[in-house]
């Protein structure tokens, strides 16, 4: 047979055509997701060991009022290891603590050891840990961080007269950390020399007095980046009488900016002063839209704020003067609302709310609460036991479909579901607030189960202070 000359060139030509038309593989499936971790979250299913890291209050505040709340939502008893790392450099103090099934164990911090940060190691995903103040005059209860990380952000800080702002940087791991702290006010970016390459030795914490670097600044946002090692960052703001307010606010930082933030709870009671702080750590100016959802029948005109690069902008929430100035979201008085903050997805920001109450119907005090960037369909929240305090569970539905929510009450080894907490329907973009003070006992834990991802916050209104914090997301649970 005589060899044919054309088939091979034609085959080659076809191959080249295929190469240029459809030769590239489907690389989308190869794209890797960015780090989805959250500072606070129930560990995933299958967890064999988890760590909860509690930096604790600044040294200037007594730990006598500090409590550690260990919640076991499983039906088996658990044993956790609680370790205190004393500030003075003494040897760490560890103890095993039994946490009975379906119960909350509250430990007085002072009983655990000297002043210093605390690590709680659990051996399942069913134990969650909160810490903070639970007294009439000082309420600030927040979940501890469930991870250490290299990057932390906080938006709502202030160092005006009568306030002290602290940054507690806790290194719970075995590697000495070195961190860079950037303080951003509305006017400038401060990178204090002594806060660059700041050493945070292994298993110690460092308290940074932010008010000494950003003196008398109304808006103070903080970014922390670790070059070596991972840390946990919590912010505390102490409001003295000189500030015109009182109380302590504490909030755990977030690990990364995001394009959307949701806040489930807020109100415009008389005597309140609330802002949402928008921090832009990125390199470009960002336009941010702030929406308030008061009710289906109560439209609120959103506000668009420009947050300059590296800047921090406050948007007042409610109680706006008339005419409404720029930067004030005109939420009707005496309204409960949920808040939605959205920016360009390519220019993520950090959003945090600062609320100051003064002689309101529910008391006085201060609170900061970080927004939630990633709604979840399951949340865990611990009931506060502050005497005579009102505890409100706020549920926000940021989605476009209605959500049905059931809340289980876990207490004393059993699970119950009060009628008031069953089958709660939340319309798209709306919120629901349930005062649980009288619905559940003092040592109760609520497990919120929703038919779609929602955002859950818990607010505690005591006579002398208030606290507001996100619940603990528990994704992937049964």
């Amino acid at each position, binding site marked *: 047979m005589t060899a044919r000359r054309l088939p*091979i060139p034609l085959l080659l030509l076809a191959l*080249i055509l295929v*190469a240029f038309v459809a030769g590239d593989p489907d690389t989308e499936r190869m794209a890797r997701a960015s780090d989805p971790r959250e500072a606070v979250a129930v560990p*995933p299913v299958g967890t064999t060991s988890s760590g909860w890291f509690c930096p604790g209050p600044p040294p200037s505040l007594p730990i006598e009022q500090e409590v550690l709340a260990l919640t076991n939502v499983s039906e088996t008893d658990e044993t956790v290891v609680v370790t205190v790392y004393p500030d003075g450099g003494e040897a760490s103090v560890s103890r095993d603590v039994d946490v009975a099934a379906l119960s909350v164990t509250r430990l007085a911090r002072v009983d655990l050891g000297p002043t210093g940060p605390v690590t709680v190691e659990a051996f399942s995903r069913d134990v969650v840990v909160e810490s903070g103040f639970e007294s009439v005059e000082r309420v600030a209860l927040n979940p501890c961080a469930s991870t250490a990380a290299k990057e932390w952000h906080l938006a709502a800080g202030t160092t005006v007269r009568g306030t002290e702002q602290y940054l507690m940087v806790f290194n719970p791991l075995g590697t000495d950390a070195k961190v860079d702290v950037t303080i951003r006010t509305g006017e400038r970016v401060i990178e204090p020399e002594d806060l660059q390459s700041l050493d945070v030795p292994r298993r110690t914490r460092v308290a940074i007095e932010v008010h000494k670097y950003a003196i008398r600044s109304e808006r103070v946002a903080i970014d922390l980046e670790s070059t070596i090692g991972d840390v946990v960052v919590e912010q505390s703001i102490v409001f003295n009488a000189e500030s015109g307010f009182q109380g302590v606010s504490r909030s755990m930082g977030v690990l990364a900016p995001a394009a959307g933030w949701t806040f489930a709870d807020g109100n415009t009671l008389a005597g309140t002063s609330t802002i949402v702080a928008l921090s832009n750590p990125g390199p470009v100016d960002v336009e941010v839209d702030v929406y308030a959802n008061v009710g289906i029948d109560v439209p609120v005109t959103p506000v668009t704020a420009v947050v300059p690069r590296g800047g921090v902008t406050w948007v007042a929430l409610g109680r706006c003067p008339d005419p409404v100035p720029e930067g004030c979201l005109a939420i009707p008085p005496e309204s409960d609302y949920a808040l939605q903050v959205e920016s360009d997805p390519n220019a993520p920001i950090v959003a945090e709310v600062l609320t100051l109450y003064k002689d309101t119907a529910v008391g006085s005090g201060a609170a900061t609460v970080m927004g939630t960037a990633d709604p979840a369909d399951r949340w865990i929240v611990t009931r506060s036991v502050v005497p005579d305090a009102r505890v409100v569970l706020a549920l926000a539905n940021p989605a476009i479909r209605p959500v049905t929510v059931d809340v289980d009450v876990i207490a004393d080894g059993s699970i119950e579901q009060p009628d008031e907490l069953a089958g709660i329907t939340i319309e798209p973009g709306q919120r629901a607030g349930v005062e649980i003070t009288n619905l559940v006992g003092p040592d109760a834990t609520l497990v919120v189960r929703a038919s779609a991802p929602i955002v859950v916050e818990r607010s505690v209104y005591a006579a002398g202070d208030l606290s507001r914090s996100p619940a603990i997301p528990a994704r992937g649970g049964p």
Partner: protein
Amino acid sequence: MDTPDPDPGTGLLAPGQDPGAPQAEPDQPEAEPRDEPIPAAPDHVDREPAVTDPDPDAAVVADTDTAEPDDDEPDDDELDDDEIEAAAAPAVVAVMVTSDPGPWLEDAVASLAEQEYPALSVLVLDNGSTEDPTPRIATAEPHAFVRRLESNLGFAAAANDVMATVEGATFLLFCHDDVVLAPDAVRIMVEEAYRSNAGVVGPKLVDYDDESKLLEVGMSIDHYGVPFSGIEPGELDQEQHDAVRDVFYVSNAVMLVRTDLFHELEGFDAATFPGFDDVDLCWRARLAGARILVAPEARVRHRRTTLQDHRPTRRDETVDLEAWTRGRVRVLMKSYSGLALVWVLPVAFFLNLIEAAALVIGRRPRRAAGLLGGWFDNIRQLGDVHRARVSTQRLRRVDDGDVRDLMVRGSARLRMFLAHRLHAGDRLADVSHRTRDAAARVRTRLRTGHVVLATVIVVLILIGSRALIFDRVPQVGTLNDWPSLGALWSTFLSSWRYAMIGADAPGPPIFGLMALLSTALLGDTDLARTVVVAGAFPLGAWGAYRLARPLAPAVLPAVVTALAYVVNPVVRNAVGEGHFGPLVAFALAPFLLSALLRAGAAAPDDRRARRHAMLSVALLTTIIAAAWPPALLFALTIGVAFQLAVPVAGGLHLSLRTLAIAAAGTALAFVLLAPWSFDLLGARAETFGLVTREPQGLVDMLSFQTGRAGSGAAPWGLIVAGLLPLAVATGPRLAWASRAWMLTIVAWIAAWLPSRLDSSAPLPAPEGMLVLAALGLALAVGLGVAAFTDELRTFHFGWRQLAAVAAAVGLALPIMGLTADALQGRWGLSGDDWASRFEWMSEDIPDGGFRVLWLGDPTILPGDPHVVGGTGYLVTRDGPGDVRDGWAPPRTKAERELARAIEMVRAGRTVRFGHLLAPAGVRYVAVVERAAPESGRKAAIDPRLEAELGAQVDLTVSRVESSAVIYENESWIPRRAVAPPDVDVPIDVDDPLEAATRDVPPTEAVLGPQSESEPAGPGTLLWSEAADSGWQATVDGTTATRADAFGWTNAFAVEERGSVDLTFDAGLRRVIAYLEMVAWFVVAALWWRSRSREEDVDLDPDESREAETYEPPVEVAS
């Protein structure tokens, strides 16, 4: 040197008799002239001194005293000058040993008779000749003494007879019966003996028939006793060796020995005959402090007809190799000091083993047996050897170091080989004439195109590989360091796999091949590794040349094929990416394709040729697949490609034959790789070296751009050049071009399609399959050149000529690419590696040992990683690891737990990763994001995993590099440790990781070797190899009970403190490994035996066919 004085009873030459005669050395006793003439003095022979009796019936020659004096013999009181001279000269007795001598005997005796030396007596020792040589001797020298021995005792034993029969002689001149001494030879040697105070003196030996050719001018040996003359075969005597000098020994063809020294040495050692009696005597003389000299002015013609004149070669069947080896080894064992024997004997034996292997391959098994038999003879006669050694060492007055000064370095056999192969021709003819001719030829050849191209290839390869050759090959990818030779053998023969955390699986055959290569290079594993890496270029080029050579009548197309193959970026990317397997494939694939071509070329009834081709395919596939398992499909891929080309190129029968041979060869290769190959069946993709890779597009494949090399348009130039034969070739050449192209296309598609079908599918190193594409393309380019040179001239100028220009330009592009890449000197390979950067890990290995867990993208980890969730991991021991960590075994239950632990940390389900790793002895977790510290491929690790690793409470950052982080596990347990008896160790648990998470017991490392540790226990012995019931521990001989520690490693209950011996019992696996190696040798031997038939295939069409009608024989055969 303390040399014994000459016999004071003998005289020196009388002063004034010979102006050139030497004076006595200052330390010599003053010689007294003898009172009576020396020649034939009765005291020379104490037993029936005899004169030659021409009567053949005489049993013993007559006494000198009874001899009839010559009529003209002067009286004592009438001494002439000669007699005075004789009286002053020291007496020399020439001892000629003969046995059934040839016709040269008379000449030999006559040359003694004609010596101008006055005091020479001649004694002929007849060594049991069938016919009495006395009459012949008498004819040549009537004054000679003849002593007949009853049987042939050999030269040495016969010569020793003089110790009992000769007296009064100052020197003994031993000589063979096939020598002719120049008349002044004895005088010169005696003079030199006095001048230099030597104990033994030898002459210059020249060829019997052609005195211009040198045979010996003193001899030396290497450290292993092999003689070495330093004279090249056929070397002309131009007085270039005529300086008197110390030598290690002189041949007993003619050897002047001081009589007293000979007696002190107790003569020759008869057991070293044949071949080493002279070596032995001289060595012992040296040990006794005597000098051995050669006096080249004394010339002796030597016929070399006696047994011991022959040196053994592998093809010289006349030599009794066993006796020769026996003598040599006996000399070594006698003469070396004890310390030197410790290394000399093993090395000498090892070299003989290699030689024996070569003899077996060369189909001379009996000679191989003889070679090794010589060793065992000495072992059998160890008592006798010992006695001889004691006697020899008693003589010792000098150290071995002084003796070794005169030995040659290296292997004398190798030197002889080189002398034979490299220099003989130049000595045979007029050197200057040949040099001029050679230079002229070189100049002529250099002007030819193919030589220019070949030179370009060689120069570019050398320049591009210079850092790999002269510096080191960095440990990147799978180009890991090779451990010691023993470790390679051990890894191959071991029943327990070394890689990962161990497995009950057979050792990969690649380690056996590495060990064989390293053994051939005298155990230098670094050199072997360099040879493989840097040698891939030239070997691949040579293979491509050989592949194409039969397909074209001229050399140029074959050279261009080699060029087109070697300029392809695929090999540079294989080196740059550190892909060992594809590199081996590149080097050997041309030979594989060549074998398949020959298979097709063989006549249908030529079974032997086909068998040879099939064995070639099997052996090559075995080697390539051992290095890179997917290559098991290489031969089949070629066969399938040829089959697919049938509609285009025809040749159905040819392609069917090729496919059949490919299938048979592959099947045999599979068997040769057993039992390892059976482990591949059903194994996970990683076991084949397949890992998740960034998928590449078909454009990348077509341009061979799988790494840094090959960017731009250069690779496309190869495609353009490869299209030339499709445009201009005709007939069979066009058919072969079509087949080559079909192979290229099939290989391209095979390399690309899997990632197109599933981008997350595990893939082999892309360079591996692209080797076949590169090979097919290179062949097409070569065929294009062949068509251009043979066929294009028949066409008028037109588009075909333009196509040829385009092809030339196309080929020039990748050459420029190669040139640019060559400048770096290491083909894109990094200059550094993680092994060097993390060397500190193994600088201070803690007791018990540890492991390192490497995490990162599977394409950049050093070794063959396994993959979990897209993350690669591998485990090394006591540091950064070496090549033994490659070729990962199939996953075990224990390794699944390790993978689960990694998956857990990636998913954020643990903060105690260190606890989870503790049972495996993992001390460090190395997270790397680049193939090498400063360069190499970058691939970020899964950010989630990276973040979670940083958040583990029991890991500490130990070292941070620009592209790597090393974590230290605070909870690690030594690989071999004992937990105290009062500590609970999780045993046989259901969830291993759960057990390890909660608590890691305190342990104490076990010291000492694995086979016999220092006392340890009592308690629970933790052995961090993967849990397997084959592991056994005995404590002071008592077997300890085994259980699964933490559910995935081993625990043994140690009741009492004692020495622990840990062994793994895998039944017959070691035997199977030996059988596997035997199978290799058997197949290799069969292949070797059948190779001669290969020449029967007429692969050189130049002689038989005109260019216009040229048909490659392979096509004709089809």
